[in-house]
């Protein structure tokens, strides 16, 4: 299956792309996918992950999701 990965703010700089499509499996977790496609990237404790536009668990399989987004600390307003 295919997954779209979106990055924002400093994570876009860190990963070098804003949005890109990757191959993945339904039983992979966001953490596993990022380890595979961006081995140098460490989400640390401050970067959250959203799966299909909802905050999600780094260690829960993505199922049939079509989008993963990296959500660094937000600063709107």
């Amino acid at each position: 299956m295919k997954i779209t990965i979106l990055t924002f703010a400093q994570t876009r700089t860190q990963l070098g792309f804003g949005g890109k499509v990757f191959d993945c499996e339904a039983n992979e977790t966001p953490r596993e996918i990022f380890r595979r496609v961006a081995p140098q990237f460490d989400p640390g404790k401050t970067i959250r992950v959203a799966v299909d536009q909802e905050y999600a668990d780094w260690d829960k399989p993505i199922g049939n999701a079509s989008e993963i987004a990296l959500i660094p600390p937000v600063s709107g307003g």
Partner: protein
Amino acid sequence: MKTKIEFTHVPIVMPPQSFASHEIGAALEFAGLVRELEDGNKIPGLHYEAHEPMARKELEKIFQELGVKHPCEEIYFSHRLGFVPVGEASLFIRINAKHRQAALALMAELIDRLKQDVPIWKVSQTC
């Protein structure tokens, strides 16, 4: 509760007020403006970006949740994206309610939640 969310790449223009009912007793408006000093440095403005579809979903969730605690009639929310020069509004929120307490509490909590959970980022010029 009537809600509307807008993201715009041009200066925010407040829509004229039109009160849905004669039971609205409090009309509260907040504009967040870009300040000249960011961490002590003079800046020309800020760049804003968003995960817009997710931001809309998060905002709707927050509206529903806060609307239970603080019953209000209408929320109009507008956030500017792209470059926003110093002195211009990056954020505009209007809340109409029967009572001022609900409007003020919802406004305060909404902005707090915005700054915690809604995927919008300000990116300083040097990025």
